[in-house]
């Protein structure tokens, strides 16, 4: 929801980043305020995941210009774990499998680390078990997820649910969901979307990265941005997603004209 005078959570200005000497992000500007849901759309290879990983602090990317302000912090000065503890969350497009680490152990470690940072009580294994099982119901996840190794042998859809479960546990200020809809059938998509909708409120914000409009039927964005070759080339409201659905992305490249009433 767009709220008048709501505080800015994320302010990205002129962000440039490269990997192995190749520039991928070529000057990104984006402002996200509390309560808002932003969608970033764009063709494969346009730089969406790169942007998401740079926000989360992946060390493979070198930031060569611009700034990222996250609430009162200069995000670029923080290692990934401090970004997470400050309330930034990335649901990975390709969640990593970690054999040998039980999911419940991982979830509890992450939860307690973030709780401690917020000056709250840690949960012991029994308390955490009750807590996480409640959250899992929200996402209609089977209890045996807890005993299995992190993401190991999970189907694509199970991995995505596990990401949203982590989001539900960590209660971030800003969540970036990278293609959380891909690999989900329609029932799973509804469950995940419902989970996300129950987590979002006026005090947090969400960036949905996707290249289908499908997800946006269930999680309705306040803003839709189009990314192309490492830049946000157009910004509109939720109707822009529908326009992209019917017209594709070519017209944007062709005439670079923003849709009526919005500007990049």
């Amino acid at each position, binding site marked *: 929801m767009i709220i008048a005078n709501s505080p800015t959570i994320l302010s990205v200005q002129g962000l440039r980043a490269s990997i192995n000497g190749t520039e991928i992000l070529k000057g990104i500007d984006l402002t996200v305020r509390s309560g808002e849901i932003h969608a970033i759309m764009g063709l494969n290879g346009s730089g969406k995941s790169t942007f998401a990983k740079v926000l989360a602090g992946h060390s493979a990317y070198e930031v060569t210009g611009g700034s990222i302000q996250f609430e009162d912090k200069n995000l670029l000065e923080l*290692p990934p*774990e401090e970004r997470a503890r400050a309330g930034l969350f990335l649901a*990975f497009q390709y*969640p990593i499998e*970690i054999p040998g680490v039980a999911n419940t152990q*991982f979830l509890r470690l992450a939860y307690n680390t973030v709780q401690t940072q917020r000056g709250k009580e840690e949960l012991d294994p029994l308390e955490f078990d009750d807590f996480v099982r409640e959250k899992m119901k929200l996402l209609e996840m089977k209890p045996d997820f807890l005993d299995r190794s992190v993401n190991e042998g999970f189907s694509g859809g199970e991995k995505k649910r596990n990401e949203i479960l982590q989001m539900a546990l960590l209660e971030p200020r800003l969540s970036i969901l990278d293609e959380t809809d891909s690999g989900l059938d329609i029932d799973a998509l509804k469950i995940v979307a419902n989970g996300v909708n129950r987590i979002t409120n006026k005090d947090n914000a969400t960036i949905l990265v996707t290249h289908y409009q499908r997800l946006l039927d269930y999680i309705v964005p306040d803003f839709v941005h189009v990314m192309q070759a490492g830049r946000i080339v157009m910004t509109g409201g939720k109707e822009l997603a529908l326009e992209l659905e019917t017209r594709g992305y070519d017209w944007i490249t062709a005439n670079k004209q923003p849709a009526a009433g919005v500007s990049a």
Partner: protein
Amino acid sequence: MSEAISTSYLECLLKSWQAKPAESRAWLNQLRARAIDCVSTQKLPTKRDEEWRFTDISPLTALPYRPSQPDSTLKIEDVQHLFLDDAKNRLVFVDGHFSQSLSAIAEPAALIAGNLPALLSAHASILESHVGHYVPFDHNVFAALNTAFLQDGAVVIVPKNTVVAEPVHLLFIATQHEVTSYPRCLLIGEAGSHITLIEDYVALQQAAYITNSVTEISLAGNAHAKHIRVQRESAKAFHLANCAVSLAHASNYQSVSITLGSQISRYNLDVRLTDEAAECTIDGLTLISDRQLADTHTCIDHAKPNGTSHQQHKCIADDAAHAVFNGKIIVRPQAQRTNSSQSSRNLLLSKTAQVDTKPQLEIFADDVKCSHGATVGQLDQEEIFYLRSRGLSETAARNLLTYAFGAEIISRIPVSSLRQQLEQAVLDQTQSNPS
């Protein structure tokens, strides 16, 4: 090492050999005499020997080498922290010598367990037909030395169709400085029997000493054995071990070998599937640091059809440690429809750590399913990033991933008290890493 030193070292060792013990038997004396002959025709291996390319054992000769003497002053309070709650059958050896007072057998009706001299007369023929039959010593100077000095040893015989409920804990405690001990184990699983055997090498203090052990395991038709071997010797010790396993028809052998201790250690494990449809699972974990060297050589020999072997070996090497894994798998011409897999995965935690891994497949049958793979690497950067993106510090992320790498093998140990001890050992070692 020059040959002169090597020869005189062995000569000196043999001089410390005592003439036959009083209670001995003719066949045992002959075995020992043959072993002495073998020692005198062999040399200590050097890095020029293919089987010892990575492992220089010459520091061994710098240690005085007197054989250990029995020390009866040890009290149960001194060692009971080494006992396992859920292994109530226990044979304890102090510096290689059996200690009756520290041992206990909870299921005397279910199995025959004791030390070699005590069982020699009552079980003469079965002992004669197994002792020294599986670990050959004509090309193995350490096995020859162990056999030459053979007096004491652990003997476990599981009668036909008997299931031993409690694990049997063979606890070898090193207490003395600058001695050599010669532990010896024999497990005979008669047809259809089931047992879990723990072979555990520990030290009471950080002493320098030599353990030279030989273990022989024979499983008859349909016998099952789980064999957990833990080498947690002093960090200054030398540990040289040979184990041979003989598997009869449809028998099943599962082993987990954990290597944590010793300055230099070498473990040879030979498993021979001598009859059809035998199965084995051979897992290993080496976790070493500082300047430790741990060398594991295994050989799984499929001699008959329809056999199965699965092997997973992992090494974690930190600091300037050096781990070696050599895994040979032989599938002989007769061994059709063999199913064999081998995986060697290795983790280097520092730039100066080293791992040498060498799978060696010798397949002479055509209808077989064999797979193998080996990797050597650092922790995965994407896994580290994933954990950090959830709030874990880089150190916590690395520690967790290292722990998980080792814990995968530890988790296969079917004795929970031992499993917990070893999980803690892996945790201690992986948490000490400040990277």
